[in-house]
């Protein structure tokens, strides 16, 4: 059990890294894209907006963290 937990933690650390909020944001943005596309509206614009927003927030958090 400890090994399985260790493996899953290592996979999480490898893919998600130290900013889990960005990972959650990407998942939510993909879900929103699917939702918008499902109602028949053009949905390509959702991801660029979300990605640039998430990146800006992530950089902002890191910059604030370094100034403490």
């Amino acid at each position, binding site marked *: 059990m400890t090994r399985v937990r260790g493996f899953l933690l290592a996979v999480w650390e490898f*893919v998600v890294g130290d900013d889990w909020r960005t990972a959650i944001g990407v998942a939510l943005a993909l879900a929103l894209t699917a939702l918008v596309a499902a109602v028949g509206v053009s949905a390509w614009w959702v*991801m660029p907006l979300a990605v640039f927003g998430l990146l800006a927030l992530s950089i902002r958090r890191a910059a604030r963290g370094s100034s403490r």
Partner: protein
Amino acid sequence: MSGAELGLALSVFLACTVEAVEALTIVLAVGSTRSWSSAMSGVGAAMLALAVIVAALGPAITSLPIDVLRVLIGGLLLIFGLQWLRKAILRSAGLKAKHDEAQIYEAQATAARAAGARHDGFDGYAFTIAFKGVLLEGLEVAFIVLTFGANQHRVALAAAAAGLAVLVVVAAGAAARAPLAKVPENTLKFAVGVMLSSFGMFWGAEGAGASWPGGDAALLAIIPGVLIVAIAMSKRVARTLDSAPTAHSGPLTADSTDQATVSV
């Protein structure tokens, strides 16, 4: 070769070049201070492990339905790419220490010398450090090879691009007989972050049901768009630091990912 395939090959080549330069530094350090034969055995064992991972997971991933594959792989690639891009922006802005291969080489060589007496024949320290270094750096490349390759059903092309990068770096390392400190690693990492994020965004949106204007040609707008935004963010952070020097206490220290030797 289509534009998307060219993008795949270029992204994998650049990512693998960066990781191979970092792995080369570790192998050079333990090889020159401990044992070349044991270090090279470690490299061989790690390469074998990576080949097994790619060969085992490649067919499993490519057997998924295309929309599931695109949204899943696109999402993972985007999360992974944003990690690279974020760190590249922070390095570029001066908020995170840049990689210095010469410095890393010295640190690794000092640790290798202090690790106890060398044994004639097989040297466990040199084997383990070389194995770990190549495996950890290589895992990122394996991830990129699998995600990029699986999405376009071109795992073999992605693997070939990675292999070519390794050959180029090894040849350069053999010629220089020193760490490749002059390779513009941070610029390459910036470029890789842009490529991974762009392709991840493109495939993720397609998998979720969106249609990009112009189809694949949209990548010609997405990649420069991400690049421009990333450069603008980097400049903005650097300007903010310049205007408030007392608030910034120096470059960020290595984060948890770097401490695990898997440096993005």
